[in-house]
């Protein structure tokens, strides 16, 4: 199986969005609890939390986990 047109374009999009310094999934997990609470409150992100937001836009796995986290908090909720 080779790459189709969509995959080539996704690779180019990933390359175009690449930053010299990016946090990895471990760092993202470490800050995710604070990030989700700040996001739900709608308050301003610190620089460290902004990097988590950047990671979430480029990492599909962390993004999936973040979506599940938000649902779990909404439904199970901090009660």
């Amino acid at each position, binding site marked *: *199986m*080779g*790459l*189709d*047109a969509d*995959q*080539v*374009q*996704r*690779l*180019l*999009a*990933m*390359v*175009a*969005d*690449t930053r*010299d310094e*990016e946090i*990895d*999934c*471990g760092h993202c*997990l*470490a*800050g*995710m*609890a*604070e990030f*989700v*609470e700040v996001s739900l409150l709608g308050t301003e992100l610190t620089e460290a939390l902004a990097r988590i937001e950047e990671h979430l836009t480029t*990492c*599909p*796995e962390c993004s*999936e*986990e*973040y979506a*599940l*986290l938000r*649902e*779990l*908090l909404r*439904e*199970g*909720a*901090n*009660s």
Partner: protein
Amino acid sequence: MKVEVPHEEGTERVSSAVPRKNGAARAYAPSVKRAPRTNDEWIADLRSRGAEQTAALADLRAYLLRALPGCLDRRGGLPLELIEDVVQDTLIRVLDRLGDFEGRSRFTTWTTTIAARIAMTELRRKRWKDVSLDDLTADGMRPSHSTVDPGRDPEEATARNRIVRRLLELVDSDLSERQRTAIVAELGGMPQEEIGRRLGISRNAVYKLGHDARRKLQLGLEASGFDAAAIRAAFMQER
């Protein structure tokens, strides 16, 4: 799971302190009548050895089980036994990492981030268990068909073709075999932790492998006159 923690009378396995899903679990009914714990109370109770720890673990377990089955059902679902394992693993990891909690969020939110990661890991393992890296990477980066819409303006099509050709040259010349494998598998939709499982490296290591590869391609394209703005102009206007 073998997690050892200090204990007054030696050591004990943390897993033995975690309420089980079967008969023993019924002895640890959640203490639903008490007021919600503060972060400090969670930490103190979980660090204690005795009734406070047992009650705190039972409360955390009940809290996690309140929403996990429904949320996982919407993602393909896990058998109840595996959901119980997810909760069990979460409690073990929470006890193991209490020192990592910095109090920047509610304790239950922190616990839920750990549960979300463990649950998604199980879901991905289930989804990808029968797929090998070879299935996804057999033909490497060779495009399976034209990457350019034949109906596009010829000049735009030429610009896009030049970028794609240079990208694929760089993939061949500048990336290691492992980097190529990781990138192709990721483009095939395989999650990083599943790629890592097959390569024998961690999810973080896969992320770094991919980041180093993307950075090399980015620098190579820039050196050829195709910076991020040029790529976006050629390919992403319609998105």
